[in-house]
Every structure is written in C-alpha cells, then in structure tokens.
C-alpha cells in the first residue's frame, strides 16, 4: 500500500494510457503471430475495467486526502529536463481533488453508455477515450507549468478525433473549429508562460517551470516571481493575465468566445459530449483558479468588474439563447454557457463562499449536464433526431426515462435538495456579499433556467403522442438504467449532504483567497497601483 500511495497520482494519470498502449501492443503481437488481432469486444471490456479501476483508485485518493491541511498533497516530483526547469511535478489540493474524482467517475459511465452507440472503429474509440482520460487527469494534477501545457494541448488531440470520426453530419467543421479555437488561446498562453519564465530567470537566476516550490526545496518557483504591474507592456500583469485569461476563457466558455461549444456538442457523439461538458469545460475555470489568479493577483482584482460583467452576460445570454433552440443538444450546450457563467461569477467574487460554491458547482455541472447529454443520447439512439418538434408525449411510452430526465432537469435548474442548488446558493450568496448588483442580475438566471428547461421538457415529454414513431419507443434497458442511477446518486447525495465535499474544498479555497489578497497587496504596494481597490473589500 505504501508504494501505491506514494505514486498514486502517477498511476491514476497513466493507467488509462498504459492500458491503451498495452492493448495496442498485444494486438500488434497477436497480428505478428498470425492471429487477427484482438476483438473489439475485448478492447471495450478492458477499457471499461481500466476506467473502473481508475475510479476505485481515485476513491482511495479521496480517502487519503487530509481535509485539515492546506497546500498540495500526494506530491510527486521527478526531474525531467532539469536544465530547463522542466520537471514532473504532480499534487492535488481541495480544488483538483474533486475534479480528478469527477473525471474518473464519468469515464466508466461514458464507456458503459456508449456500449452500443459506437459500432465502427471501436478499438480506435477506446484508445482515444483512454488517452483522453490520461490527458484530463494529467492536466488537473500538473504543477509544473510546462507539464501542464503539454497535457493541456494533449487533450485536444483525442477530442478532435472523437468528434471528427464518430460525430454527426458537420463533424469535421465542428472538430476543426474546436481545435483551432482552443489552440489560438493556448498559443497566446504559451507566449505568456515564456515571458514569466524569462522574468523568473531574471529575478532568481535559475530556469524553473515549477509553479510552486516543492515542499522540501527552497528554490523559488514561478509563483514567487514578482511580475511587474507597470513597465514594459508585454511584461506587465495585465497583458499576461489577459493572455492566460484568453486561453481559459475560450475553454470555459465565456461569451463571446463560446461559439465553438454548440457546434462541438451537437456534432460530437454522445460519449464525447458528456466528456466535453463534464470535464473539458472545467479546464478553463480550473486554469483560472490554479494559474491566472495566483500568478497575477493585482490584474485579477483590477479586472474583476469586467469578468463579472462577462459572467452575468453569459448567464443571461446563454439562458435566453437556449430558450429558442430547436435542437435539444444545442439547448443543453447553451445552458452549459449559462451554468459556467455562474461558476466564473463565484470565482471572481474572491471570497470563500463564492469560490467554494464555484468549485462545487463545477462538479455539479459535470454531473447534471453530463446526465442530460446521456439522456439526449438515449433519445437519439432510438429516434435518430434531436429536434424538439419531432417529439412530444414521450413520457407515455418511456416513463422511467421521464423520471430520470425530470430529476436531472430539476438538478440543472437548481432545485433545493439536489446538487445544483448548493453550488448556486453559495455562489450567489458569496457574490452578493461583495457585488450585490451583479449577483442580483445573476439571480434572474434562476428564473430563466426554469423557463427554458421546463419549456423543453414539456414539449418533449408531455402532451399527446402525436407522432407515430414515438408510440413505439422502448423504455430504458438495464444498462442505461445503471448508468443513470449511477449519476443520479451523487446528484442527490451532494444536494442533501454536501459536507464531505465542501469540507475538502474549503481549506484550499480559503488559502487561495488569502493568497491572492495578500500577494496583491504586496505587489500593489510595490507598484502603487490598485491599492484603493483592495481597501473596499470586506
């Protein structure tokens, strides 16, 4: 167990890729020996087992996590290219713990749900999915900025293929759009990373990509470099923050950089959509929390009103546009824009309640929107259409489906005693403490969410069964029920008893808030900028 625990994060990260490569290798070996390679069913089974095993390992991670300590836990450090300061440095804290758990939780569910959905090139599909899982977990636990960037970009490749090969009619357009959009932002972020690297070299004399110093070392890391507030324009906090923020804002997605999302979601296969909505969208907000805020605190605090405005715009705009969609999947995609607007609002409230709510809401959104995409996928599998007008009265032939759909809908609109409410309530309360006007506007999103979800639900589920094909719909089979029950359990659990999760998030979040504030004060004192902004905060 000791060995296990010591390298738990590495195992968690690389087990899926390892499995994929192992399967690939075995298949090649089998081919070389004259057999016909491994059957797709074997790939599927092994892939699912690997994802399931990964989930169990992450439960061990959850159990081993100490909720009373702030700072990184389960740290592993290995020199990779030490001459340039590129090291293999991983660790989790309260924020990334839940996101890793979400990733490993959703993966087996996704693989199980697409058991019959994907019928061609199954082996490639499983390969890409496992590869994607490695990329995602790697991004969440990376603490060396170079390593983070590598994993960040690595995630794009399997996602591009998944959308591009197994997607809908406009899949190439959607896949290319997704790839290029994200890459543009990332490239600017790379430039910013190099600038910080260069600044760190200037100030400490060593080349170091580590975000923070490892526990046993005194070597100053990137977080310790003082990034000037004034001076050469491309070295100031504002522009660097903007570069980072661009990359992350595209991923979130924030309005007006969100247009890749509806296309990507609509054209992706069901499993791809679930992973995209469930995990990939969290990368943006995670990036803000882990990198953008701690590295550039003065800029973050100064630019807060802009981000609040964009978040509230996202909430209201996303909800209004979702309301008039004709394609259910597109509607859910726009609802994601609205939900993540809430998360961004909570982050930029910069107090414990708001951020706590934001981190929890990340998990909540992953669960409820993931579940929504699964449900839409089940409908699509049966009728091969996603347009609302082709449905109506579906609750009659598919009552169990209607029940699950109802629960997930209610979770999405933030009904108390389900998970969505806890996150939204904390976010709105936290934001209200510092920016009551913005929070009041954002609360109207609660009404709009009910409007568009219930309207869609009514048109799809209720009413007479007008269209003949809808009468013959078959209700959920046991595999689908299993998948949905698996997702609904945490939805209800987090809603009724969120303590275990909040307890683990809180130390890291309060540390982050403390950190950002104090460092902003120090840096502002150095640069005499923004000090008055800081004084107003409660």
């Amino acid at each position, binding site marked *: 167990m000791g060995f296990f625990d010591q390298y738990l994060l590495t195992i968690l990260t690389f087990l899926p890729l390892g499995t994929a490569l192992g399967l690939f290798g075995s298949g090649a070996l089998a081919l070389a020996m004259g057999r016909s390679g491994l059957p797709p069913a074997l790939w599927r089974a092994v892939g699912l087992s690997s994802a399931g095993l990964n989930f169990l390992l992450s439960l061990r991670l959850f159990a081993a996590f100490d909720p009373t300590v702030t700072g990184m836990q389960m740290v592993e450090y290995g020199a990779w290219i030490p001459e340039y300061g590129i090291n293999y440095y991983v660790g989790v804290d309260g924020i990334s713990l839940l996101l890793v758990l979400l990733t490993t939780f959703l993966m087996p569910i996704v693989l199980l749900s697409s058991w019959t959905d994907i019928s061609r090139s199954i082996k490639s599909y499983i390969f890409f999915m496992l590869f994607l899982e490695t990329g995602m977990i790697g991004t969440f636990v990376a603490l060396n900025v170079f390593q983070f960037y590598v994993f960040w970009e690595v995630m794009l490749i399997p996602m591009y293929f998944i959308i591009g090969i197994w997607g809908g009619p406009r899949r190439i357009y959607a896949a290319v759009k997704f790839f290029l959009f994200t890459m543009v932002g990332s490239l600017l972020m790379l430039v910013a990373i190099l600038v910080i690297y260069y600044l760190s070299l200037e100030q400490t004399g060593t080349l170091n990509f580590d975000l923070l110093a490892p526990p046993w070392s005194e070597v100053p890391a990137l977080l310790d470099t003082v990034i000037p507030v004034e001076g050469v324009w491309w070295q100031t906090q504002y522009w660097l923050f903007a570069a980072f923020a661009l990359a992350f804002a595209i991923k979130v997605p924030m309005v007006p950089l969100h247009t890749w999302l509806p296309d990507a979601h609509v054209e992706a296969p069901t499993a791809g959509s679930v992973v995209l909505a469930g995990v990939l969208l969290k990368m943006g907000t995670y990036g803000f929390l882990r990198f953008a805020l701690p590295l550039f605190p003065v800029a973050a605090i100064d630019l807060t009103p802009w981000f609040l405005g964009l978040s509230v715009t996202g909430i209201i705009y996303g909800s209004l546009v979702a309301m008039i969609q004709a394609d259910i999947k597109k509607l859910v995609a726009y609802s994601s824009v609205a939900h993540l607007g809430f998360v961004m609002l909570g982050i930029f409230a910069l107090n*414990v309640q708001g951020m706590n709510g934001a981190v929890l809401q990340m998990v909540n959104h992953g669960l409820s929107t993931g579940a929504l995409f699964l449900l839409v996928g089940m409908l699509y599998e049966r009728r091969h259409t996603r347009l609302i007008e082709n449905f109506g009265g579906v609750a009659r032939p598919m009552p169990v489906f209607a029940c699950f759909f109802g629960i997930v809908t209610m979770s999405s609109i933030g009904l108390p005693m389900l998970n969505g409410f806890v996150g939204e309530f904390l976010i709105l309360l*936290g934001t209200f403490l510092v920016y009551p006007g913005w929070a009041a506007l954002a609360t109207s999103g609660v009404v709009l969410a009910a*409007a568009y979800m219930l309207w869609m639900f009514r048109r799809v589920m*209720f009413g007479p069964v007008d269209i003949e094909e809808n009468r013959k719909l078959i209700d959920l089979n046991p595999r689908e029920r299993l998948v949905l029950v698996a997702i609904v359990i945490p939805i209800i659990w987090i809603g*009724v008893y*969120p*303590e275990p999760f909040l307890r683990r998030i809180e130390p890291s979040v309060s540390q982050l808030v403390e950190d950002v504030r104090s460092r902003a004060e120090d840096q502002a004192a150095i640069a005499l900028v923004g000090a008055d902004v800081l004084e107003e905060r409660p």
Partner: protein
Amino acid sequence: MVNQQTELLRWIPLLPLIAAAVHGVMIGLMRRSAPRWVVIALSCGSVLLSFALSCVAFVELTALPAESRFLVDTLYTWIGAGIGETRLAADLAFRLDPLSAVMILVVTGVGSLIHLYSIGYMDDDHREDKGFQRFFCFLNLFTFSMLMLVLGDNLALMFVGWEGVGLCSYLLIGFWYSDRFNAYCGSKAFIVNRIGDFGFLIGIFLLFRAFVEAGVPATLSFSEIERSFDAIRELTLAAPFWGPEWRLVNVVGLCFFVGACGKSAQIPLYVWLPDAMAGPTPVSALIHAATMVTAGVYMVCRLSFLYADAELASAVVAWTGALTALFAASIAITQTDIKKVLAYSTVSQLGYMFLAAGCGGYTGAMFHLVTHAFFKALLFLGAGSVILAMHHEQDIEKMGGLWRRIRQTGVVFLVGVIAIAGVPPFSGFFSKDEILVAAFTAHVPGHLWLYGIGLATAAITSFYMFRLFFKTFLGECRAPAHVRDRVHEPSNWVVKPLWALALLSLIGGMIGIPQVYGDSLHVESSHSLNNFLSPLFPAGAAHHLSHSTEVQMALAAVGMAALGWLVAWFLYLRRPELPARMAHSLGGLYRMLLNKYWIDEVYDALIVRPLVRFSDVMLFRVVDAGAIDGIAVNGTARGIRALADHGLKYLQSGLAQGYVFLMIVGTVAILGYLLR
C-alpha cells in the same frame, strides 16, 4: 432560553418522504401496478402517522411555559462555508413553536383528509396517463416539502420547502400530462413561482449581507435573526442610479413579499392559480387552498419582527392584499367553471390574510389561514364530489337542481358557503372579523380605506359564493338528460371526509372568539389562538377598541354577508332572467370581468412574446450566429482563406527560377542589413 431538543420533529416530514421514496422505487422497479391497498396504506398511513406525531408534538409544546415555548431538532450542518463572522451555516434543523405547530396540524390534518378523499376520487384507470400510485407519491412528496417549509429552522431550509412545494405543484397540476394544456398550466405555475423565488433569494442575500456589514455574526436561522435584528434595523440602502435611500428592512420585506406574491398568488403573480385548476380536484384542495398558497402568509408571520419594523413593506403587504382581495372577488362573480370560482375566491381570501398581516394582525392572518383551510378545502372537495357526480362536468351553467339528487354533498357544500360568507357562529365569521378589526385599528396609511375594501369584498364574497351554490344546487337541472339521470352521490371515501371538514368549518371558529364575547359568556381565555400565538409576534401598537365598536363592526360584517346573500337570492332565484339581461346591457364591463381583465393576454404580449422574439432574432440570429460566429469566427477563417487564395498562393509559381530569385533578393537584403 432553555433549549428543548427533541428527536420527534424529524419524523414528521420524514415519514411522508419515506413513503414517497418507496412509491418511487416501486413504480420504477415493478412491472405491473402495485395493489391499491398497498398504495393506500403506505401513503395515507404515513400522513396519518405524521398527523399523530404532530398532535403529540403539539401537546408537548403546550406543556412548556409560554415564554420558552419551542422545540428544536437539529440533524446536521447542511451547507457550511466560510469561517468566523461571515460563516454561512445552514443546518438541517427543525423548530416547533406555536406558529409552526398550528401549521403542521393544518397540513397533516387537512392533508390526511384529502388523502382519504383521493382514494375515491382518483379513479382514472381509463386514462392513458393513469397513475394511482404516482399521484400518491407526489402527494406524499408535497406533504414532505410543505412540512419542511413550516418546520425549517432557517431561511435556507424554508426555501427548500418553498421550492419543493413548487415542484410538487408542477407535477400535480400537470398530472394528467397527455393533455397539452395541463402540462402548460403546470409549467406556468412553476415559472411564475420561480419569479417569486427570485425575490425570496434576494431577500435572503440582503439579510445575510446586512449582518456582515453590521459586524454581527451572519446567520440565516430565524431565532438568531430575531436576536440580532436590532443591529440591522437602522441600515439603509440606496439604489445604484437614483437617489432616495431606503431602509434595509423595508427592502428585505419587499423582496420576501415578492416571493410571497408568487407563492400565495397575489397581484401581480397570481396568474398561475386559476390555471392550476387543470389539476385533479384533491390537488386544488390541498395545494391551492389549504397549504401551499398559505406559505406566503406563514412566511410573513414568521418574519413578523421584521415586518412590524418595516412600515413601508407592511403597508405594501396590506394594500396589495386588499386590492387583490377586491380584484379577485370581482372576477369571481362572472366565472362559470365551478373550480375557477373557487380559485379566484382563494386568491381573494389570501388577500385578506395579507391585509391582516400587513396591518399587524398576525394572529388574525393565521386564524383566517386555519379557517380558510377548513372551508376552502371543504368547498373544493365538495366541488370535486359534484364534478364526479356530474360525470366530469365543471360548468355551473349546466348544473342545477342537485340539492335533491346529491343531498350529502349539497349539505356540506352549503356549510362551506356559509362559513366563507362570514355568518356566525361558523368559523369564517370570527376570522374575518379579526382581520377587519386589525385593518380598522392599524397604523397603515389609509387603513380606513383598507377596512372599507375588506367590508366591500365581504359582500362580494358572499354574493358569488351564494351565486355558486344557487346555480349548482338549486333551481332546475340544466344538464342534458343522459347526465341528469345518472347523477348520484360518489363513494364514501369521497363523501365522508367532507363531513369532517364541515364540522371543522362549523366549530373551528371557537378557537378564536374575541375576548369580548368570551367575557360576556363568562369563559376565560376564549381567545385561545391569539393567546397561543401572540407571544411570538411583536405587540401591536394598535388603537384600542371599545366594546361597542367591536360589536358594531361584527354587525357590519354580518350585514355585508346578508347583503350578498340577498342580491344573489334575488338575481338567481327570484328573477333568474335578470343576470343575462344585466350582462347584456353592461356588455363591456361584463366581458372584462369574464376575461379576467385580460391580464394573461397582457403578460403574454408585453413580456413573454417580446422576450422570445428578442432571444430568437436579436440574440441568436444576429448576435450569435451572425456577429460572433459569422463575422468573428467564420469571417476570420474566410478572410485568411481569401488572403491565401488571392494573394499568397501566387508565390508558389512552381518555377524554380522564381524561388531562386526570391532567395537572392532575400540574401542581398540580409547582407545589406548586416553590413550597413
């Protein structure tokens, strides 16, 4: 204060929840429907058990001395975030004090009766969307939510119940979902409710933030808010762009009242309640008469310490209540659907409750809440009985002469009508009287006008209720022959609970007889409900009334009731051809009332349609698909492609010589730069 911990309270809401969960699992797992007796036993059993526990808790409560009369049951910290003074800790904790004790008795008591009634009513096996078990599952879920609402120890938990009842209302109104209209009504209820919830949430946030600003430990728990209330009563708030400063307590009171308007169907958010009649009648009785809609009144009474201090908010509450009462009553006099009349009547009576609460008569509001629960549930269930007897006919124009045919229903219905009209010694008289006294003696600006409106509405109420009774039960039967001959009393499950409610409507007033009469009858503390509840509420600084004034007011109220009855008798029994002629000659006015002042259409045209069109045309097509996607994203792609297509590609001429030339030019340039 002595803190009374008990493990009893949690079971009161938990039992219906467990029943609902078991129902849900059974529906999900079982192939065929469960046997009826199992469903009945589980569902009615749990609610009856809850009622029994409520009685036990009530008894325990009364055993405590009046100053510290409360019981608390804390389970765990539900949402906790932050540290120190800004810490948010919303516990899952229940609190039983006289106010919530009254509520749980009403909810579980009347609820049990309605559960029993539903056994007989929900015979809908011929429908496509049948669901005997599903109905009881939702009813249990509703009971759980309502109990959470009233027993919750803090605002967050109250909000849980608040939204929960909204959800169950949605599920139950649209219960027969094969009909598109029912589903629409359910959605409408939920969304209008949500608008109210928006106000409620803002109220919670404002309150929390006020505590933080005032420097006291922030809290959402009712008892702690009350304790720390002094710290925030002087705070003011200024709207961002224009001038006057408002007292914080007024703004908070108004925000919470917006929530109450949504939940309790006051102007301008009442529009969902009449359409909610699309649901089965037991639903209308339970949710839209006795319990859910009274949540707003309960909330105002729960926060009475705040409203007593917030004069502006209280005035708004009182005036909104009064105007709603009058407005809804005016619509009720022309409606022809038996349930719609009762729906508007409910809106009107809720207005009375808010009138009392706004005037500081919190006990009066609660008293009317209790008596209204009795007689309105009775009226609705009676209407359901009539509907069943008439084979699902709801138009009173097609009824009449039922007194001979379904005597039991007729009798209990008459009891309800007399009670709501406010004739002593039925319960409605006493509660209405207390409301009118509160209005008469209040300090709200224009309180005499409020009294006048209350009095006038009493007359109108009496009028339309007797009109309903006369048209439904008396006169000639206007139903077609094949219906007329098959009219019969529905099953016992339907009729027997009605007797219980009728009894309560008759004697329920005994708990609140004003002390004046008690003195003359030599009964001590006859004003028992008031005595029970008043330690909770701020002492009213009301004008004092002399004995004779009180009696005069009572006589005025009875006079109004009699007036209404007289006009109804004249128009519908003595000269039945008159109403049609009046409707014809007052054409415009009649049509306006019949069409409910066209408010629904106005909302649709002013709010709903423009919003949808704006979202579709402006936001989606112009901004999203057009500007962002079209110009910025795809436009950039097209621009780069055009640049390559029309410019850059010509560099690739395929001629090696061209490339050589460029190389030479480049080399010369670099050398020139380096060697200058």
